[in-house]
């Protein structure tokens, strides 16, 4: 039987209606009242406030905070709120050191309440193996200077839908900073969980943020701090490393999630501890690994490839540069040194902000810091912050622009 569908009683009227679809729309548009087109939308403005492409801030104050550590307070230029953050997140700051421009990530270590007053705190500890950037910041930054920073980012924060109510934070050295932020967040009612910080230092005098942590834990029964000294045995302190026994002791039988932040050597050590404890991946969260400084020690690095110099041809939109690169350092370090001002943030292979296209050449990407998307691997994309050249390379890098 042939199909015969009509909607109104007379099929011909249906047909006319179809014929007139465009006419009906034309007439409907004609009848509308003209209005001013909105230049922006409230929802988009709020999104822009939460996730700005960059923020310009002023250095408000700098104060010494334990051996080799300086806490820097940043403030917004207009006195208004800075982008809010979840305790544990970091910002990537842009540093113009001599002829080169580079970025470094620092955890936000103040209370989340501070961003609403237009302030962030970061703590910069002087270390030797970071390209002398921490030294540069400590020596050259002065209150009143203006710098550019990213929006808060990163994933080392408490997530109630995922984490256990009890969190054991394992900190080493300046790795204490995200947990200071979390402690403040709990005290100020921004977060609700039980935080026990196992803080490893060499000696008592190496402890950062001691007074603040004492004060918070005295005021707030959800925050506990246990100092663990490796090079000293003292009363009132645990002695040794952040071991499985110590973690079990302070977990006290309750289900818990582990957060860790510290130097790469600590992560490598804790991998074994986590295995000993039989924790699954859901319960173990780690801060950014950082740039790998010894690619030659990583599995898969070809023998004899170490310390070779090559040339990189770098295309940024319609500009082209040729620069020297080394098989012992990530491409991004060479880009920075050449002053190319290419995008970067986490410098750990994770965030993808430096995502670039490798057009030709051989590279080594350590598995530990390979945060690329699967299809990106297929189509030859790399994250230059975690990519070491093994030959001359040709790379296409996205540009960088200032928003608005």
């Amino acid at each position: 039987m042939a199909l015969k569908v009509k909607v109104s009683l007379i099929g011909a009227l249906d047909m006319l209606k179809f014929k007139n679809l465009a006419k009906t729309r034309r007439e409907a548009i004609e009848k509308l009242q003209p209005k001013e087109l909105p230049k922006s939308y409230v929802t988009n403005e709020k999104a822009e406030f939460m996730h700005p492409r960059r923020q310009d801030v002023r250095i408000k104050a700098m104060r010494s905070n334990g051996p080799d550590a300086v806490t820097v307070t940043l403030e917004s230029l207009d006195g208004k709120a800075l982008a809010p953050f979840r305790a544990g997140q970091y910002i990537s700051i842009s540093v113009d050191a001599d002829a080169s421009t580079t970025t470094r990530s620092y955890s936000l270590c103040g209370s989340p309440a501070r961003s609403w007053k237009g302030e962030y705190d970061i703590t910069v500890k002087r270390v030797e193996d970071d390209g002398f950037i921490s030294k540069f910041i400590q020596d050259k930054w002065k209150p009143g200077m203006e710098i550019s920073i990213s929006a808060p980012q990163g994933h080392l924060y408490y997530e109630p839908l995922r984490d256990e109510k009890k969190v054991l934070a394992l900190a080493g050295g300046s790795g204490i900073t995200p947990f200071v932020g979390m402690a403040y967040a709990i005290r100020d009612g921004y977060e609700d969980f039980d935080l026990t910080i196992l803080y490893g230092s060499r000696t008592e005098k190496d402890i950062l943020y001691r007074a603040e942590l004492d004060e918070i834990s005295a005021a707030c029964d959800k925050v506990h701090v246990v100092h663990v000294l490796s090079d000293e045995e003292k009363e009132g302190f645990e002695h040794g490393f952040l071991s499985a026994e110590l973690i079990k002791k302070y977990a006290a039988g309750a289900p818990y999630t582990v957060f860790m932040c510290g130097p790469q050597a600590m992560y490598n050590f804790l991998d074994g501890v986590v295995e000993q404890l039989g924790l699954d991946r859901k319960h173990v969260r780690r801060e950014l690994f950082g740039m790998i400084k010894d690619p030659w020690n990583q599995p898969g690095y070809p023998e004899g490839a170490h310390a070779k110099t090559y040339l990189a041809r770098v295309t940024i939109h319609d500009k082209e540069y040729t620069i020297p690169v080394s098989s012992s350092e990530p491409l991004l370090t060479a880009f920075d040194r050449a002053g190319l001002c290419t995008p970067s943030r986490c410098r750990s292979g994770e965030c993808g902000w430096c995502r670039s296209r490798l057009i030709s050449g051989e590279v080594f990407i350590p598995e530990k810091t390979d945060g690329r998307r699967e299809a990106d691997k297929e189509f030859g994309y790399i994250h230059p912050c975690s990519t070491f050249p093994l030959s001359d390379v040709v790379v296409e890098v996205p540009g960088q622009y200032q928003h608005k």
Partner: protein
Amino acid sequence: MPKFDAVVIGAGNGGLAAACRLAKAGKKTLLVEQHNLPGGVASSFRRGRFEFETALHELCEFGSAENPGNCRKTIVDEYGLDINWYQVPDNFRVITTASDGKTPIDATLPSGRENFINKMEEYVPGCRESVTKFFDLGAETLEAGNYLTASGGKPDSKVLQEKYPNYLRTAAYPVNKVFMALKMPPLAQDIMNTYWGYLGVDADHLSFVQYVNMVCLYVNHGAWIPEKTSNELTTGLAERFRAMGGTLWLNCRAEEILFDDDDRVCGVRTTSGVIDTRYVLCNASPTTVYANMVPDRLVPLRDKKLLPNRPFSARMFVVYMGLNKTAEELGMHDYSYFLPSSADSAKEYNNLKNIDTNHFNIALCYNVVNPKASPEGTCIVSLTTTYTGDCWRKIDPKDSVRTKEKVASEMIDWFEEKTGIVIRPYIEEIEIATPWTFCHYASVPEGAAYGYELRDWDSMMPRMMMMREEYPLKGLKFVGASSIRGDGFNSAIFSGDTIAKLTIGEMREEGI
């Protein structure tokens, strides 16, 4: 100053398709994208050992290599995209309450026309005839659509009347009117209505043609997904564009469209300098482009009437979860679960306006179709809802985390309650995207990734019929979800392809 035959602004599905079509025609084309990767909402992101698909990314009208649909013919055969695809075996499972307010519905509908009809008869005895007619009508509609496209918008009305009379008689009506005309039993209508959520407009206001097209394409060809998320589709298309001679600038923001003394496009000012071109195709909302990138004196009066009065379509909210159990261990056997609070789409559309009343939920488990979607021993589940109003505009940024956590938690509860599948204890990674997130990543007004509502007189058919008069400024056209076909991966891709072909025709007339 760099000079291009055409500049495409925005590398979403629509912009990528337009760029590929132009490049394939040998046009010197520049594609600029303000983010550092292409795709817009069709992308992916990583957390821990998981990589999450960002969108509801099923392609319809794709089909197998042996029996290709138009979409496969375009992006695989013509643009040359060579990636792995998976076919989704079942169309959907819907668990809800019928519009009568009491009858529970739990229906799983397979792909393939006969399978689908048989299953419908099983769920609603006596509906076979009306559902069969629905698919017959769908077949006629698809053919009519192909004829209309082939005729370049200038069909012979005699041919239409002789070959596609049923199409002509139903094309001007919304879904529910035609369902009534087909005498479809109410319960069958409820089940057949399920896909409305993909188009964001309820059955009282959604064009039947558009709907029957979509359902038939999904049922006839099945739904298809790329193996390595939408990023494989969009980064893959970007690579094809380059291979065909195109130039792609990522992290490059177009800021102003430039016009000459005759008020036609003569260039684009970008964050990487001024580009000389006579053709600009925007994969962006016309409302924001006209408001911010075109001199006010040139904005056509019709657009000052149309655009600010046009409601935006669905604002997205998605919970992405990496679970530390397999789909099998969890007892998840279906790929997509539609979990509206009621099958009454008009009522549901209203409920979706507010955060408190919104209980819509589309759950996808990628691993059911694609075993490589996540590492061994795990699976990925996403829960998506849409808002039909601007409720997220009112949220104070100070409450944003609390609000999104609460909505996500309720969606997880809703999913567990409706399906009986427990997922909460197994969440290893979770990320929550709100309309704000879509504002941030796709720069869409109000987080409305679906463009303008395909409602009543503004549905796909009349938009398509008016294609040649839709963009009155010489040299400036629009592609993507806000363009002539509305939302959906296919629609965005075809809008780009069609508008690019129209542009190529204009170039020919101008001797370029």
